[in-house]
Every structure is written in structure tokens, then in C-alpha cells.
């Protein structure tokens, strides 16, 4: 009995470790390839560790195309979206969670239903609209919609706000406070963790977005990192070592942000799944 339990424990660990290898190996392979010479990368059988480490791949990759500019562009878009997402979704979520007004249920239902709608259905008219407004090749189509709040963010925050005891509001109303005071003085200070979650997801969304920039930006000087990376691939497809270095640079900020906010990420995902 004891022995068979020991065996099954070892099997479980073995499967988990195998899964971890599957998750980490591609990332390891990326970093390993990014530091090899163009000769060594083609060696068969493949080497696991680069020798020597060629860090100059990074400077070479970053100077081949204007990565610094792409980085700045991406940062501009990401930061603008982040601020907008935080403001509009916390306002909306507060209203849907704690204020009563006619039509609230209807609009909240609409909001939830919109999450099921495939993006392709709205993409074409939205594109035509921005084109008529003469805003193609600007960041407005990438940023402005976020300022109207995303369904996902509002839903996530609303779940949290709904859990804050209502007595707090009632007491504040008795003291003569209005909804705005309650929002600003009670709700916001209590909701730092979910706001961090939304901030992280918003950062991720804009940083990783590919379809948006692909459709709306057509001048190289306005490109984001995601687009720049794709351009790099089409221009230097045979230079794997440089492509891998460039990819690593695009991934690195996301990984850093992830490790800083790890706890909140897991919390946020958990919340979405559980309330589904």
C-alpha cells in the first residue's frame, strides 16, 4: 500500500516536470538561439549552450531596424490605454454594482453579451468609421475605444465592488455624502488589488496587440514592437539568431511585469473563471 502510493506520487511529479519542460523549453531555446553566432545556430546536432555567448546579437538586432522608436510608440499606446481603462471601467463598474438606475440591467446584459461577439464582425465598420474620420495611421483608433471601458474590465471590477458591504454606502449617505464621494473615498481605496489586476491585463493587451496596429498603422515610423518584429522577420528571415534576439527584447518587458504582478494575475484570472 505504502509503496504503491510512493510510486504514484513519483509518476505525478514526473508528469508535472515533463509539463514544465514543455512550457520552458521553447523559451530556453529562444534565449539560447539569441546568443549564438549565425554559424553555430545551424550546427547539427544542435548545441544546448552557446559558446561563446554573443551578446552583440542584441545590439545588432536592435540597430538593424528602429527598435527604440517602436518601443517608445508601444509605450505611448500602452500608457494611454492603461489610464483610460482604469478610469472608465472603475466608474462604470461602480455604477453597475452599487447605483440603481432605470435600464441598468439591460445595459449590463448588453455589456456581457458583447464579450461573446467575434471581433471580426465589428472590425470592418469600425475601420471604415475611422477612415471616414481621417484617423487611420494615428493611435486614436487604438486608444480611444479603451477610454469607453472594456466589457471584461467592467465585469471583473463589478464582481469585486458588489462584494463590498452596502452598509458603508448607507452610512455615508446618512452623513450627507453623494455617490461621487463614496466612489472616491470608500470604493477606490478599497479596490487596489482589482485595479492592479485590470492595469496588468490592460498593459498586456496593448503590449501584445497585433491585429489593431496591423490594421490601423501603415507608416513604419508609427509601428509598435509587435509590428516591428513581424517586419524584421519578413526582412531578415534567414537571420534566426537576430530574430530570436529581437523576439527576446519584445517579450522581456512582459515577463518582468508578470513577475512583479504575479499574485494579482492569478487572482484576476481566477475571478473571471469562477464568476463565469
Amino acid at each position, binding site marked *: 500500500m505504502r509503496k504503491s502510493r510512493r510510486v504514484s506520487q513519483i509518476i505525478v511529479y514526473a508528469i508535472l516536470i515533463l509539463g514544465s519542460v514543455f512550457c520552458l523549453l521553447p523559451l530556453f531555446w*529562444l534565449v539560447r538561439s539569441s546568443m549564438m553566432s549565425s554559424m553555430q545556430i545551424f550546427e547539427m546536432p544542435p548545441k544546448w549552450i552557446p559558446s561563446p555567448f554573443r551578446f552583440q546579437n542584441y545590439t545588432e538586432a536592435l540597430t538593424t531596424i528602429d527598435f527604440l522608436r517602436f518601443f517608445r510608440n508601444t509605450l505611448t499606446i500602452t500608457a494611454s490605454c492603461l489610464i483610460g481603462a482604469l478610469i472608465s471601467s472603475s466608474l462604470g463598474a461602480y455604477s453597475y454594482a452599487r447605483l440603481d438606475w432605470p435600464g441598468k440591467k439591460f445595459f449590463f446584459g448588453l455589456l456581457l453579451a458583447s464579450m461573446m461577439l467575434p471581433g471580426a464582425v465589428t472590425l470592418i465598420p469600425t475601420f471604415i468609421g475611422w477612415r471616414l474620420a481621417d484617423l487611420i495611421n494615428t493611435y486614436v483608433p487604438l486608444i480611444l475605444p479603451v477610454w469607453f471601458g472594456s466589457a471584461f474590465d467592467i465585469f471583473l471590477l463589478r464582481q469585486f465592488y458588489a462584494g463590498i458591504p452596502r452598509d458603508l454606502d448607507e452610512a455615508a449617505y446618512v452623513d450627507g455624502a453623494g455617490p461621487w464621494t463614496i466612489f472616491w473615498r470608500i470604493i477606490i481605496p478599497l479596490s487596489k488589488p482589482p485595479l492592479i489586476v485590470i492595469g496588468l491585463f490592460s498593459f498586456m493587451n496593448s503590449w501584445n496587440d497585433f491585429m489593431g496596429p496591423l490594421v490601423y498603422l501603415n507608416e513604419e515610423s508609427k509601428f509598435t514592437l509587435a509590428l516591428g518584429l513581424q517586419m524584421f522577420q519578413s526582412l531578415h528571415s534567414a537571420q534566426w539568431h537576430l530574430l530570436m534576439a529581437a523576439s527576446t527584447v519584445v517579450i522581456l518587458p512582459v515577463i518582468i511585469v508578470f513577475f512583479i504582478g504575479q499574485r494579482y494575475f492569478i487572482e484576476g484570472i481566477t475571478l473571471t473563471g469562477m464568476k463565469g
Partner: protein
Amino acid sequence: MLHKRRIAVAGILFALPSIFGIMLFVILPMLTSLLLSFTDYRIVNTPKFIGFTNYKRLFDGTDPYFYNSLWVTFKYVILRVPLGLIVSFIAAFLLNMEFIRGKSVFRTIFYLPAIVPAVASSMIWIWLFSPDLGLFNSFLEALNLPTLNWLYSENTVVPSIVIMSLWGMGSTIIIFLAGLQGVPRSLYEAAIVDGAGAVRKFRHITIPMMTPIIFFNLIMGSIGAFQVFTEALIMTQGGPNNASLFYNYYIYRQAFQFGEMGQASAIAWILFIIILIVTAIFFRTSKTWVFYESEV
């Protein structure tokens, strides 16, 4: 009374951005694209009403890529959704076992790939899949197995992209894990008292208690899988021989490379209707297999 009115006014004001947003960026475009789907509209000309011609052209095969992309996408969904659910459920279940140490380390490792930008992960996987120099073929060679052409063969391109997508299953695993942690321990304890073994506990407690979450992941996973796009654009451009011309990529190509906005709107609406039907079927069947605790 006055108080109530004040709250209602504030409520509407606070929700105004989101109401505007949904009108401007969801409802209006949705209706517009439905209208456009009945027009001949090539970005340069003014839209001309042509009835069901766009739809007819798709269904009668005048546009040879429609059925092709439908088939390719269904193949992807049918492989990816069940496989993704099974793999991530097993991962979460094993991670949740009591004796496992370093849970948070494993959890981080399993989630890590999910945060990698799709463009970058596509670059990594093209490289891993490379027929001459890729890691996977070197493995196969080392094991004396025949090598594969992965993304470069019509037969293996979709399964290859499925394998890649399994790499990014992190959030599904986390959701399952959270669900498993919510199963009351008292149920298992009662089962042990009744003499149930591991298999019976799994079948009669874990699975039924997890059905709402399996259902959630099934719906979200299917909606997501129908919309696979970036991987195809970067890794294969729909090739070889349109074997990875996924539906969303087909829409993108029609609209933004060929400028056929009317036709592309019709294609997009068909996707919407397919997703509605599939979700409706899932909801219908859910009554027979999804177990909600509150109903007991």
C-alpha cells in the same frame, strides 16, 4: 425620493462612457456590418445594395476559399478545444494534489507561456518547427524517428498550430485550479468514510463538481478557437496551399488585402452565426451534464 433620483442620475452619468462605448463600438458597427454584407463595397466605391449576392457567392462555391477556410477552422476547433480542456484539466488536477510541493512554482511555469505576445511566440515556434534546423526534428532524428514537415505540409500544419496553442493554455489551467480548490473537502471525506477509492472520488465528486467550470472553459475556449488569427498570418500566411487559411485570416485577407468590405462583412456575419449556434447547442446540452450546486 430626492435621494433616489440623485443616485439614479449619478448612476447614469458614471455608466455613460460604457453606454456610449457599447453603442459606438459594438451595436453600431454590428448593424453596419450586417447592412454592408448586403452590398457591393470595395472601399473605393460607394456601397451598392446587391441583396444576398455576397452570401450566395459563398455558399455556391464561387469563392473557392469559403468552404476551405470553414473546414480548416473546424478541424482546428475540433482538435484544439477538447485537447486543450483535457490537457489543462489534467495539469490542474495533478497540481492540486495534496502532496505536491512547490505548487506556486509549477503554477507560474505553466502560466508563463500564456503571457508571451502572439507575434513573439509565433517566431519561437517557427524556429522550433523548422524542418531542417528545428529542435523538434532534431529530437525525432535523435530517436531515429522519421522527421516531419510541421508547418510546411498540408497534413501537419493544423495539428502543429494546435500543439503550439496548447503551450499557451495557462489561464485555462489557472481557472480549473481555482475551481478544484473550491470543491468542499467534506465531500471527499464523506466518500472516504463510504470506502470510495481514488477513481470513484474523481468520477463521482471531482468531475460533477467541476462541470460548471468545464462548461465555462468549453464556451470561452470554443469562441477563442474559432477566431485564431495571428499565428496563421505570421507563421504560414494561410499556407501551404491554403491548408491553414483560418476563417479570421480569410476575413482579414478579404477586407484588408483585397478591400472587399461588403463580401468580408458577409463572411464575418456567418462566423457570428456559427458561434451563436455552437454556443446555443452547448447551452442546450448543458442541462443534461452541468451540475449546479445551488440546484440541489
